[in-house]
């Protein structure tokens, strides 16, 4: 079932939370709404679910306009950040709730709930109370509960936001597999770019109630359309400077190639990904290493160059030669992504 949102607006008191968001999700697709907290992405999700009413704009599910329908009539599965499990019901009754509401025979409802619990890997926990489960388990119960009535649309509001990093990473891989099996059209709200990029077919960047960019994970990473997107994705250095006579941008102690021909004297801001910086031990270099943090196959190097702080990610093998206080030469590979500085 496809989802279409047209020009949504929403205001809480004086605050304009959504200022014209349009969105289209194909049947079976998994799309992330990514952006900083308070940008309005959760509100978009709640409007799609019917938990919130838009001030203006339209919501279509499966080709039907649904703005007049309340949440109960939309048949949309919803998973909340803080689980929202019914604390006075056992796990199995939580999962069976949507079936009970639909007057499914209790034995049948229980059988289906047990089957779903087994599917999310919580087979033996049916009789537990929600507060006897870990966060990760609770969120899987919440997911099983949302899936029980077999919705064709699944909306997830920061589902892993309250979990620790390890559990998050496991759960999101698991979520993607589940999505591929179940096939429900899924919209995931998250402020975690890694989560958005790793699980979704498409990422929609939302900021201040507006869409900044809507594209595949590769497009978001490789061709950011706005400075905001460039800065939001990945680990970046932001440097400002002036274009010199040779057409190179002199910024943050670096001389950067700029795409196209730019007039000398133009002020520009460059966004450099940490992995695009090359750091080499060089006694004559102007950079000084401040800190080296080992990651899996790379190392994160924090350094200063002519007074500016920069961060680079280099292969572990290259990092072996770098020590705190050692002098290094720094260069940027490829043309820099640059944006005009608004006066």
């Amino acid at each position, binding site marked *: 079932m496809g989802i279409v949102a047209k020009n949504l607006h929403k205001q809480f008191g004086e605050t304009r939370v959504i200022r014209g968001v349009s969105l289209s999700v194909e049947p079976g697709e998994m799309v992330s709404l990514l952006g900083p907290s308070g940008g309005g992405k959760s509100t978009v999700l709640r409007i799609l679910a019917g*938990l919130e009413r838009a001030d203006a704009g339209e919501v279509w599910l499966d080709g039907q306009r649904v703005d007049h329908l309340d949440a*109960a009539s939309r048949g949309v599965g919803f998973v909340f950040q803080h689980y929202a499990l*019914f604390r*006075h019901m056992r796990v199995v009754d939580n999962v069976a709730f949507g079936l009970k509401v639909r007057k499914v025979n209790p034995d049948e409802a229980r059988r289906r709930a047990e089957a779903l619990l087994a599917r999310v890997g919580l087979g033996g926990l049916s009789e537990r109370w929600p507060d006897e489960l870990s966060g990760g388990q609770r969120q899987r119960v919440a997911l099983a509960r*949302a899936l029980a*009535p077999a919705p064709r649309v699944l909306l997830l509001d920061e589902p892993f936001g309250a979990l620790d990093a390890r559990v998050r990473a496991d759960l999101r891989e698991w979520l993607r597999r589940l999505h591929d099996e179940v096939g429900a059209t899924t919209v995931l709200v998250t402020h975690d770019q890694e989560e958005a990029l790793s699980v979704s077919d498409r990422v929609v960047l939302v900021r201040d109630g507006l869409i900044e960019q809507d594209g595949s994970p590769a497009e978001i990473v490789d061709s950011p359309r706005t400075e905001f997107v460039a800065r939001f994705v990945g680990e970046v250095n932001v440097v400002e400077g002036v274009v010199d006579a040779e057409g190179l941008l002199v910024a943050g102690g670096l001389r950067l190639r700029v795409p196209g021909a730019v007039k000398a004297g133009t002020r520009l801001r460059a966004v450099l990904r940490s992995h695009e910086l090359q750091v080499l031990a060089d006694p004559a270099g102007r950079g000084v290493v401040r800190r080296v943090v080992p990651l899996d196959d790379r190392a994160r190097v924090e350094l200063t160059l002519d007074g500016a702080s920069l961060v680079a990610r280099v292969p572990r093998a290259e990092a072996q030669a770098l020590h705190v206080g050692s002098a290094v030469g720094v260069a940027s590979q490829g043309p820099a992504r640059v944006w005009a500085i608004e006066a």
Partner: protein
Amino acid sequence: MTPRRRTTPRGVGLVVTAAALLWVVGLVGVPLGALLFAVASEPARVVSELVEQGGLDALGRSVGLAVFAVLVSGVTGTIGGIVLARQRFWGRAALDVAVDLPLAVSPVIVGLAFVILYGRGGWLEPLATAMGVKVLFATPGLLLATVFVCLPFFVREVALVLEEVGTSEEDAARTLGASEWQVFMWVTLPQLRGALRVGTLLTVARALGEFGAVLVLGGAIEGRTQTATTFVHTMMEERHDAGAFGMSLILAAMTALLVQALPTGARTKH
């Protein structure tokens, strides 16, 4: 081994504990003990005065009033609490304050206000007369007084719990297809179980113990508007001390049982 260090020296702790115990014993234990002693020293007279002076009738009336107050404010208070916690409307802040008025204003004053309303020439007197209801010095007056002084308990407990649990469970139920009635019956009401329990206990305790308002509105007429507390008052005035002691002990025992039934400290699970 970490050195064991008490946050307060042993001596200070002992003194504080002893002082607290003494305070409680002196304030609660001694008077209750005296009451118990007074009753135990002449039980036959206590029983006979309770029976002959209409004590049982008064006690029955008080229990009836308490049940009535629980039923009425259980329903209206739950609705009021939901409105207060969930709705945003003009005048909400004023309502929020007004709910607590029965706690802040002396019941005697409240009784007087009702006397002015329903007494001779009162604003509501024609209405009551037209409906054939006698309010003052009759059962309706007692009911009115009791319901009024018990107003805040259910509202407060319900609103407090609802604000604490938030709306996400209710929203979850909605997305699962539950109608508003199902959301209320299967999600909201179970969340309120503890609040309704506490509300009931507080309301019963207050209804049993109310004195000023029922005296002013009811008049403490034996066999008609005498309640347990006004009975104690009447007995004292008529020098039937034994009856007063007996009824006081019964009320104290009932209150103690209620306090026992209140959930202590942590919210009981499930």
